[in-house]
């Protein structure tokens, strides 16, 4: 021990005088003279000056100045330490504790609990109970004794072979001191709040009172009792460790009551973001660059994705900024092998969907989410250096509870037990307060209870005092980093402004409470309105619907608002692709809040009803100079040739084969390509290209040198 290793008789004797001082005088005494020998103005003590002088706490210095009495320096140092460490009144005990221990205990003393793998926690009732129930206090103290090595022995050469014999200190050598300490601890344990130090003697029977100073020192040394000044009154008080005291005397846990919450929703935005990114990636819109967080999107892609990302309710939006969500989507897609970073022809890398990713994207939303959740239920891959695998663990981060084999405890049953009860909306804060007390790992069956807990970077024996907080953090982390983004809980805000939630189907599946679930996209139902003025309004973003409505509508917006308009032109374009009125109306009905208005349905049917699909075929028109020639052609060409008029024939074929031309030639019938000055006798049009055939009346007119060439265009 550092400051506390002194004769406490003197300190306890001066306490009655300290109690008589006003708060201002106490403050002046402790704070106005930072150095022990420093004198302060006498006026600062006010009416208490005489009292102080009489107590011998201060002495007169230079004229009009007062300084602390060097003879009472121990008292002053103890008070100053207690004032610096108000352990019973701090809001951040954990942070203060590290400093407190470092300032008040030797390294050897601090290492005592860790030797021989005991990892005992001083801040637990278990520790105190061991002391109180020990049959022999001296035996209890033996392994804890302070062995102080001289400083000179700490050299790397002499480590393990101290040159000087270490000094060993026992604080509870006498049985009376041990018994007195037990009285003090029991008294403190029974108190719901810190006790005044002046009444220390009252806690022990009269015969043991002379042993109080030694017992108190021992209690301080072995972390059985703590003392501090109350910040407001600077009154010295003592108690057991505040975590133990408060825990012992707190009210019984109250299960959170269900609250009214009208705006509950559970968007599975991780999945929605992944769909968004994967869809953009399908069109080559997600170029990647190496950034602070690994592969990141180029700014332009990032901005486009951010603009199109699904907005979240107010209660979630602040915690999940869009940039972070997209980063997560990018990481998840690559971790789950749904997309990969690949080189693209333009240069650089882009996120490209894998075959598996394309299949996943084409699945219905419920299936997509189911697949995603299933990935989180797989056993964690323990591969160093593969950061991407870590993103799919069921419980994010390092599990703070370890079994006897130092393996992490399987937390899923405990999480299921805690969250499984929230079928009605409850406030999150109340839920965490309650569950941190009633469902922590030490409440599990003995076989699966943790042996150790991670406290910061150190391992401690798992006690009720040190599992509640990490368990609360685990619940909260699981809630925010798994249940919420995977749409496993419906969240909303109660009238009082508290965040509330209830577990839904997805959450039950994630926790193994249900094999499957129904997923309704937040925008799936009631998302789209077909207006009588032919506009299609999206009240929520709905990417799949946008894709499906695209072929027969005119786009006029993005995200939400009036995104599409049904027009005759778009209807015709859709009809050209084989759409029918029934299919259009069916598609609209599938996504829309209500059936399409009567006038819209009538108009769509009217548009499509006016469409006619007419088969087109190629043929040759043969315009003959007279009826007799026409008959000759008809005879030569057979059934493939039919008369359209007396001298106009139609020859049904896409080309006139060589054999046919030969047959015609044999009969003195020649076909010729049209040219200026020649009479056009037939033709057809295909894609703006014309081929004309000419009547031939003999070798001198019309017959080409090479008949085959003349018909090839």
């Amino acid at each position, binding site marked *: 021990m550092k400051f506390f290793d002194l004769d406490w008789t003197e300190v306890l004797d001066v306490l009655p005088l300290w109690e008589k001082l006003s708060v201002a005088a106490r403050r002046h005494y402790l704070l106005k003279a930072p150095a022990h020998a420093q004198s302060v103005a006498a006026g600062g003590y006010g009416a208490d000056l005489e009292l102080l002088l009489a107590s011998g706490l201060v002495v007169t210095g230079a004229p009009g100045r007062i300084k602390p009495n060097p003879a009472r320096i121990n008292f002053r140092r103890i008070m100053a330490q207690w004032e610096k460490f108000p352990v019973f009144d701090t809001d951040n005990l954990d942070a203060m504790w590290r400093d407190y221990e470092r300032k008040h205990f030797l390294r050897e003393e601090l290492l005592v609990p860790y030797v021989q793998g005991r990892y005992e926690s001083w801040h637990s009732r278990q520790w105190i109970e061991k002391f109180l129930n020990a049959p022999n206090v001296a035996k209890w103290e033996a392994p804890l004794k302070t062995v102080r090595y001289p400083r000179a022995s700490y050299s790397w050469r002499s480590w393990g072979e101290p040159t000087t014999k270490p000094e060993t200190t026992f604080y509870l050598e006498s049985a009376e001191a041990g018994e007195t300490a037990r009285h003090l601890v029991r008294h403190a344990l029974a108190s719901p709040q810190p006790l005044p130090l002046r009444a220390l003697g009252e806690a022990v029977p009269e015969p043991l009172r002379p042993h109080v100073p030694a017992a108190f020192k021992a209690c301080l040394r072995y972390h059985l009792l703590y003392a501090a000044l109350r910040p407001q009154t600077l009154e010295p008080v003592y108690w057991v460790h505040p975590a133990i005291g408060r825990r012992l005397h707190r009210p019984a846990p109250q299960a959170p009551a269900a609250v009214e919450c009208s705006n509950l929703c559970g968007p599975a935005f991780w999945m929605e973001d992944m769909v968004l990114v994967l869809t953009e990636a399908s069109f080559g819109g997600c170029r990647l660059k190496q950034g602070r967080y690994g592969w990141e999107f180029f700014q332009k892609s990032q901005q486009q994705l951010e603009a199109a990302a699904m907005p979240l309710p*107010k209660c979630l939006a602040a915690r999940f900024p869009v940039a972070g969500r997209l980063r997560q989507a990018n990481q998840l897609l690559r971790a789950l092998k749904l997309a990969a970073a690949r080189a693209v022809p333009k240069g650089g890398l882009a996120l490209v969907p894998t075959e598996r990713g394309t299949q996943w994207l084409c699945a219905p939303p419920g299936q997509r989410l189911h697949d995603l959740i299933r990935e989180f239920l797989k056993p964690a891959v323990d591969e160093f250096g593969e950061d991407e695998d870590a993103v799919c663990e069921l419980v994010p981060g390092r599990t703070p509870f370890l079994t006897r084999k130092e393996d992490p405890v399987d937390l899923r049953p405990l999480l299921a037990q805690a969250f499984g009860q929230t079928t009605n909306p409850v406030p999150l804060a109340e839920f965490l307060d309650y569950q941190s007390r009633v469902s922590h790992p030490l409440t599990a069956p003995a076989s699966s209870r943790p042996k150790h807990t991670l406290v910061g970077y150190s391992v401690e024996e798992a006690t009720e005092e040190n599992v509640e907080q990490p368990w609360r953090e685990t619940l909260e982390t699981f809630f925010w980093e798994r249940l919420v983004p995977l749409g496993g809980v419906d969240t909303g805000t109660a009238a009082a402004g508290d965040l509330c939630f209830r577990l839904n189907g997805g959450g039950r599946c994630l926790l193994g409470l249900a094999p499957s679930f129904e997923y309704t996209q937040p925008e799936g139902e009631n998302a789209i309105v077909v207006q009588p003025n032919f506009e299609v309004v999206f009240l929520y973003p709905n990417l799949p619907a946008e894709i499906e409505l695209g072929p027969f509508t005119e786009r006029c917006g993005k995200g939400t608002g009036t995104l599409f308009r049904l027009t005759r032109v778009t209807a015709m374009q859709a009809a050209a692709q084989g759409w029918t009125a029934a299919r259009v109306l069916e598609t609209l009905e599938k996504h829309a809040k209500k059936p399409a208005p009567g*006038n819209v349905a009538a108009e769509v049917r009217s548009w499509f009803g006016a469409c006619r699909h007419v088969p087109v075929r190629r043929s040759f028109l043969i315009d003959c100079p007279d009826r007799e020639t026409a008959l000759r052609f008809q005879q030569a060409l057979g059934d493939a040739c039919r008369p359209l008029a007396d001298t106009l024939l139609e020859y049904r074929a896409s080309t006139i084969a060589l054999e046919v031309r030969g047959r015609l030639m044999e009969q003195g019938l020649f076909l010729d390509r049209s040219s200026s000055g020649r009479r056009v006798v037939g033709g057809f049009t295909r894609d703006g290209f014309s081929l004309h055939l000419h009547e031939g009346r003999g070798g001198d007119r019309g017959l080409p040198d090479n008949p085959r060439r003349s018909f090839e265009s």
Partner: protein
Amino acid sequence: MTNGHAFQPQNPLIVQGDHTVLVEVDNPRYAEARDALARFAELVKSPEHVHTYRLTPLSIWNACAVGENAESIVAALCGLSKYTVPSHVRASVRDFAGRYGALQLRREAPQLVLRARDLPLAEELAHQPTLTSLLRERRAPIEFVVAPPDRGRLKQALIKLGFPTEDLAGYQPGESLDLALRSVTSTGRAFAPRDYQREAADLFHAGGAERGGSGVVVLPCGAGKTIVGTVCMALLRSSTLILTTGITAARQWKAELLDKTNLSEDLIGEYSGDSKEVRPVTISTYQILTHRKNKSSDFTHFALFDQRNWGLIIYDEVHLLPAPVFQVTASLQARRRLGLTATLVREDGLEDEVFALIGPKKYDVPWKEMEKQGWIAQAACTEIRLPMSEARRMAYAVAEPRHKFRIASENPAKLRLVRQLLVWHAADPVLIIGMYVEQIEGFARELGLPLLMGSTSQRQRDEVYARFRRNELKAMVVSKIANFSVDLPEAAVAIQVSGMFGSRQEEAQRLGRILRPKAGENQAHFYSIVSRDTVEQDYALNRQLFLCEQGYEYRIWTLDRPEELLPEEAAPAAAR
């Protein structure tokens, strides 16, 4: 979509980056949103499920004129929006609202003083070429002297620069007039203005303060804008000039005033082509005021504005106010001005002139609300598509494009359908409305009904209207003369056999003829008969869109043969 990430699915608004606001009608907070938006946004369209509003500088200034401010508008938008209101929209609202009141016009006899909010703004004005002739002396760093005759032109010029002027220069009281509303009309019926009519008049009057006295009251067709005007006259009790769209409307005003006020006939004058009476209450038409011999000559009848010391000028159907009347109104800024209209949207885009010269919007009530309360009738719109005969189809097919519309419109097969509708609505007063003279003459002849068109004398028109109102006449055929300001409260059915191509305004006005509240189910029917698979059907689509955007139920019946009649299920419930 906006980049905002907050999401409140229970809210009814989506505020978009282009300053449009979508309102989900089925939302529980719809009524709250509608009432809030009515204050500071223009209703663009109101189809069945989602209504569209737009935030414009004028709509914000109109809101500021009745006491709104930027923060209250932004708060209303944010509180009702599903998604975060785009920051640039919030900035625009603040910018627009910040401009209102930045310039104030006050009277400091004998001159007017324009006071800018700060020196930079005053400097900006001083360096504007368009204001050089209008701003006279700069009597203080932020104050300019303005000549009283330039009051209107200055406000016009300033609004073009994007600065609305808060006109606090006051008005001339005008000649006093002993005018009071009757509690029992001259025809013996109890009379009291409806609450909204009284409220609109009170807002306009503003207790006689300078902030009131000029502005526009927006009420749907059939909601009784004439009564609002009459109540304003009763509040001001001064000589009044009423400008209307036509002589029929002028006479209806006169009849209303005689019926509902203590004015005697000798106090009301008609200033029209037929008569040039100038009396304490004078009713005229835009047509006569804008009449001139030729394009280069003056508007001789503008003298009417100075012939009496008018205390109030009422502009009926202010959205139709002709440009020359704007010019003369610019010089009448010292007189109180009341605009009455069903819509502030003008086809010519001169809404800012209305704001600057007539005044800001003082009162607006959603017509759906009035329909719910029964102050206007519910209208069911039905489009009937029937094919043309083979012969007519051939004529249509080979006709020049410019003639096609007429050939389709004059489809004789429409007559049979009109007969059927007349049978269905035998108990209802029916208007048959058409555009082509030959067509409506034929209908009148075949159906044995009176015909009113441009060439019909005013006396004949009045007679027919009177018989129609007295229920002696169940149906009549009218041309487009009945589009505006004809008060035929009994008309419950309108059958449109031909229309002005795709004119939306005409459609609204024609529908407005039948919107007066009806006894019983308070239901009006508007039929539009068009030839199937023709350009007429294409134009009808425009009108269909407009009516749907106004929120009317719209049904379509398609017939396959010209001789076919409508099926029984198409008939109104009463006729079945």
